[in-house]
């Protein structure tokens, strides 16, 4: 079980860094259309921000932010978001993952742009949930959850 380390420096630096890491993670995800990055990298960064809190702040203060039992559901939501995007396109008359068949009021090109974004968000959720779930399991945080 991970317990809190009594170090003011680690504590303060973590609390300052975590929002920036998360902002950068979202930047990596949403700016993946224009620069290197995307769902896998952004999801790993999001997971990193939570794991940093788990390690430095300890169980009592990091669990309210991201409870142990959320890890697996996040992974499931991510995979289902990806699958749902594909299935929605298929239900609306296109092929599986054919984004320009999605039922949003946009022209075809922007629909593909949006489809890519939805898929990247799904990947990010799946990677984030899976990484956090594995860490919680290894650290024993899931024992009482």
């Amino acid at each position, binding site marked *: 079980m991970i317990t809190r380390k009594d170090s003011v420096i680690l504590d303060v630096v973590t609390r300052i860094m975590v929002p920036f890491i998360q902002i950068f993670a979202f930047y990596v995800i949403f700016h993946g259309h224009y620069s290197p990055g995307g769902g896998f990298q952004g999801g790993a960064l999001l997971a990193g921000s939570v794991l940093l809190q788990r390690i430095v702040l300890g169980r009592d203060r990091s669990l309210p932010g991201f409870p142990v039992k959320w890890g697996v559901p996040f*992974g499931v939501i991510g995979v289902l978001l990806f699958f749902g995007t*594909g299935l929605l396109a298929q239900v609306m008359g296109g092929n599986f*993952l054919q984004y320009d068949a999605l039922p949003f009021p946009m022209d075809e090109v922007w629909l593909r742009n949006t*489809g890519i974004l939805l*898929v990247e968000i799904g990947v990010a959720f*799946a990677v984030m949930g899976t990484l956090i*779930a594995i860490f919680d399991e290894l650290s024993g945080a899931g024992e009482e959850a």
Partner: protein
Amino acid sequence: MKAMVQVLLILLGVVLAYAGTGLPEFGDPHSPASQHVSNHYIEHAYHDSHTPNIVTVMIADYRSFDTFGETVVVFTAGMACLFILRGLRRRDEEGDPVDHA
């Protein structure tokens, strides 16, 4: 036996080195890899999806089946880890002798 394995490995290395001489130059525009679909991707990626990052268009649009598979693989591997770890711990608690090696 050991000597035979080593001779086989060296032979295999020679074959690989010889085959390596037949590979196209790095970045060769006339290599087969640069002549099939990659030209289509490079020419159409932006007009197809308003996305300047061709790599993103490729992994999330043209090759989104692959990426879906990757996501499922990541998720499945994570779930497999969870099941194995939980199974080990449960057996520990029950006092079974478990081979952790």
